[in-house]
């Protein structure tokens, strides 16, 4: 390692950090699926119990599929992601996110203010970017905190969304990590993916002075 030129050393260190981050992301759903299977097979169960276990395994596998899609996205040139960009309804994006969390009472998505707003990007990719940030907030919130998504600045050339943790909020260390990661090219996979999608769409993830992350999108007509 010491014999490598500085640029190669940095690249290798980055690659090692990235590999560690990916391993961490994959390990969680993989452990969940493997654990569910092992526990389900420990004894005879009712059809209902097997069905519940299969649903949880299915959820873990969906997460692995999402991670695989995120990795594919990260491997593509920025231009390729930007190439999917068009004018899309912010309302449609927020409705898709609201649908995803419809059965949960710890996530609130306010669609008000987005009804006539159109933004640049791909509906699927932008939905994924916002969802990844919501998931990050959910993972780092304090017990009992709800996470909300709302439009906070509907006028001007940029549209801003806030992903906020309601009281008792998010662990301060998690926000610091989030903002540091936003500035770091090798941040956590989910934030890195969200950032890449937003940048390719002309948007950005912005650190906020409050306990929130702001997502800036480009307004279109």
């Amino acid at each position, binding site marked *: 390692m010491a014999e490598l030129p500085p640029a190669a050393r940095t690249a290798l260190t980055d690659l090692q950090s990235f590999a560690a981050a990916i391993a961490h992301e994959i*390990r*969680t*759903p993989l452990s969940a699926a493997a*654990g569910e299977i092992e526990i389900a097979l*420990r004894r005879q169960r009712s059809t209902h119990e097997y069905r519940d276990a299969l649903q*949880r395994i299915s959820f*873990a596998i969906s997460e692995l599929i999402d991670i695989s899609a995120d990795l594919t996205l990260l491997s593509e040139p920025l231009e390729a992601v930007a190439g999917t960009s068009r004018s899309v309804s912010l309302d449609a994006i927020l409705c898709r996110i609201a649908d995803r969390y419809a059965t949960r009472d710890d996530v609130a998505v306010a669609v008000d203010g987005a009804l006539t707003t159109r933004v640049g990007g791909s509906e699927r990719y932008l939905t994924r970017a916002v969802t990844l940030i919501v998931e990050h907030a959910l993972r780092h919130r304090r017990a009992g905190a709800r996470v909300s998504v709302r439009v906070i600045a509907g006028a001007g050339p940029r549209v801003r969304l806030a992903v906020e943790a309601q009281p008792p909020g998010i662990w301060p260390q998690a926000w610091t990590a989030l903002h540091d990661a936003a500035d770091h090219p090798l941040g956590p996979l989910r934030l890195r993916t969200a950032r890449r999608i937003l940048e390719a769409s002309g948007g950005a993830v912005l650190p906020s002075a409050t306990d929130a992350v702001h997502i800036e999108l480009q307004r279109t007509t």
Partner: protein
Amino acid sequence: MRVLVVEDEAATRDLLERGLREESFQVEAVADATSAESRAAAGGFDAIVLDVCLPDHDGFTLCRRLRARGVDTPVLLLTGRSGLADRVRGLDVGGDDYLAKPFAFEELLARLRAVTRRGRSRHLGGVLSCGSIELDQHAHRVTVDNTGVFLSDTEFRLLEYLMRRADDTVSRDDLAMYVWDGKEDSRSNVMDVYVSYLRKKLGRASGLIRTVRGIGYTITAQDGQRG
């Protein structure tokens, strides 16, 4: 056996909680180090399963803080990092064992039994004995004079708790908390009913369980009815 699970990732926490409950553990689960510290310091756990990555403080810091506060509950650290440096660090801060994710649930159970055994000399071999009664915590089996006795889960937990504190007077409040997980009032007659079931099933050894009027119960190696 009462276990505190500290894990921030909801799916993993839920999995550990369900899996351990099915194996007759009593489980309390929390998602952050701050809640874990206050629960662990309050006592009453036989083991702590502690994830290293937590949102407020890491598991190593929590483990060190618990030891500094005199909490001697065995700690099994769970982590995604399996490197030597992390394993050494985990043990140095007061962890009793270390399990890298992803892990087999069977291995978690084995390690949990091992750390608990080491932490309590009365658990030698995982078998508790009191007079003619033997209770095998691993096999979930009870014998009286080497003859098997079939107990329900609640009866088993009740006998296990009394035997772990053999010769002590166990209060009704403690039984309500540790055997019924706080779901029964200590004034309820449910525990009297279960003690009665247990005595019937223990047959000739029933006299080892004595009622301490107004307080609770005790189990001793000497038969209270004969002695």
